[in-house]
């Protein structure tokens, strides 16, 4: 006992000197480590949100020199009754629904396909993942080139000659306007970009399914089909759900891609809420009060879905 005490005090005296005078308590270190982050987040997220909450009840315009006038809930009332906004929400709704649904199906199918290892499967998997890492606005741009009715590859690849060229972005097919073809064109690009994301998540879910479950199922005489529905699907469900929620949030926020491809056009065919908001808040109008109210409405929707996302995330981690 005595020797042990002596020993430990010796080692202590060897290391302590530099730190002894100014050894910070854990609590101090914790504060030192966390507060810079929290302060920045508060300054750049919290504070602006309160500011814009105030603005959303005023008629403020960023271009105006006059002080904002309090309007009460007039902005909100106007927005909720404005056909433009409902148009934008409808467009966003379609966009989210179709692109997330397609991404989920294609991503899931891709994951099932690349799941079995074969020569070069690692390389191919990584190649498939490239699109989601790219800058959406740049992606939008070169897809615009792909879609070009005169010399784009798209018409060429789907077997349309020059005379039958399909102008997806302007929604002209054989010189006939086809409504929402532009939206479909944007959805296609979003699916191209983000199916790999769903694939990545589902793949990790699939890889986490222990082999012995399939062995047990083979012994239990389950067909591949039965195994898929009773083992594979339930086992990847948590991760699939997370992928869907994450993509839903991102698709609701979608801005860059559309700006790169169509800027919301032609007309307002591809004007998603974020694009609409950008137009109201910045382009020419600078209706900051009105836009803030709109931003708040979008915010509430995104927060609701984010909550779902995080709750599911915790469940999936717990499982």
């Amino acid at each position, binding site marked *: 006992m005595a020797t042990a005490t002596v020993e430990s005090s010796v*080692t202590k005296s*060897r*290391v*302590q000197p530099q*730190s002894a005078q100014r*050894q*910070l308590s*854990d609590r101090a270190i914790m504060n030192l*480590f966390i507060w*810079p*982050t929290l302060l*920045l*987040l508060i300054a750049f997220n919290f*504070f*602006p*949100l309160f*500011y*814009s909450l105030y603005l959303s009840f005023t008629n403020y315009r*960023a271009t105006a020199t006059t002080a904002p006038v309090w309007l009460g809930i007039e902005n909100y009332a106007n927005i909720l009754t404005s056909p433009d906004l409902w148009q934008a929400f409808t467009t966003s709704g379609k966009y989210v629904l179709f692109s997330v649904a397609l991404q989920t199906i294609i991503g899931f199918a891709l994951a099932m396909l690349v799941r079995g290892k*074969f020569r070069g*499967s690692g390389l191919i998997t*990584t*190649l*498939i*993942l*490239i*699109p989601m*890492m*790219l*800058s*959406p606005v740049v992606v939008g*741009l*070169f897809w615009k*080139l792909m879609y070009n009715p005169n010399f784009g*590859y798209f018409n060429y*690849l789907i077997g349309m000659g020059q005379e039958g060229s399909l102008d997806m972005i302007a929604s002209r097919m054989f010189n006939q306007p086809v409504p929402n073809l532009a939206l479909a064109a944007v959805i296609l690009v979003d699916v191209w970009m983000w199916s*790999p*994301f769903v694939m990545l*998540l589902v793949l*990790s879910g699939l*890889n986490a399914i222990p082999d012995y479950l399939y062995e047990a199922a*083979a012994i239990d005489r389950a067909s591949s089909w039965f195994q898929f529905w009773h083992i594979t699907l339930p086992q990847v469900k948590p*991760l699939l759900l*997370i992928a869907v929620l994450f993509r839903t*949030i991102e698709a609701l*926020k979608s*801005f860059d891609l559309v*700006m*790169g491809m169509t800027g919301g056009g032609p007309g307002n065919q591809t004007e998603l809420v974020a694009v609409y*908001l*950008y137009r109201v*808040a*910045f382009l020419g109008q600078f209706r*900051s009060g009105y836009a803030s109210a709109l*931003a708040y409405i979008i*915010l509430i929707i*995104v927060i609701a879905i984010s909550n779902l996302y*995080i709750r599911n995330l915790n469940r*999936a*981690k717990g499982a």
Partner: protein
Amino acid sequence: MASFAESGPRRPVVESIRVDKVSPGARATGAVRALIVLLVALIMLIPIYVMFATAFKTRIDVTASPPKIFFQPTLEGLVLLFTDRALAAPARVQELQQLEAQGKLNLFEQLALASGQEITGPSPYVGRIVNSLIIAGASTFLSVLLGVLAGYAFSRFNLPGKDDLLFFILSTRMLPAVVVTIPLFLMFRQVGLYDNHIGMILLYTVFNLSFSVWLMKGFFDEIPREYEEAALVDGYSRLQTFFKIVLPQSVSGIAATTVFCLIFAWNEYAFALMMTAEKARTAPPSIPSMIGRGGVEWAAIAAGSLGFLIPVVIITFALRKYLLRGVTFGAIRQ
């Protein structure tokens, strides 16, 4: 021919595998599956190939219909992207023609002769790229630094309301950029941070902060506490254990976080579009704006996009181990 069920596979199976997976049917399915994957991958990479090809096509080849798969590569697009040009004076054109007759033209002179335009200097795009590098680099450094500190604190210390704080931090990333931008735009304009490098650096730092905190917390969570506890028992201070024991073990995590932050900042478009005009404008919003200027220089746009693409492709390969973690904010690991 004897059936598989009677005679088994032609070659003995010297690996661990289930019987039903070596049947001819299973083998064929596997081969078909690999083929489909390969095809899908190739189809998915078409747009990337198109962009790559376009960047090295001449103006005429870009608009050729049907599209040219094989073509004479040129650096025209790159030159167009990085230079400003003006119409060449007739005298200069003659001079160039003479030089051409002697076969003494360099690339720039060839281009000048072909287009009738003379290079007058670097294009604004050069400055935009420099801005992108400065802003992405500085903000990445800051957000990783803060993320490492906060991630460590969240991983190791018990503070009241930790889960709520973490949720708050994550939720900031869920906000659509446009929503936060309106008040930020007004604030920035007030304090002179609009169209300013420092403003953008701060903005991107915050933008990536929630990501780096979550990711780094995940990495720290994986380092066993026992090492630190042993060091603390040996008389090291908390800060010393952090620097001497924890940081060296999290180098790969920090590297992954850094690269992800760099990509996000490098690719970011919405903030840059709304919060910058000229001085601090980064590359992403300036590429589409090239479409506005006269005839669309697809080769230049593709060359600009390529500059965005190549680093990302390299990084995707380098980070493939961490991709899943990265895209789910460190919540899901492989």
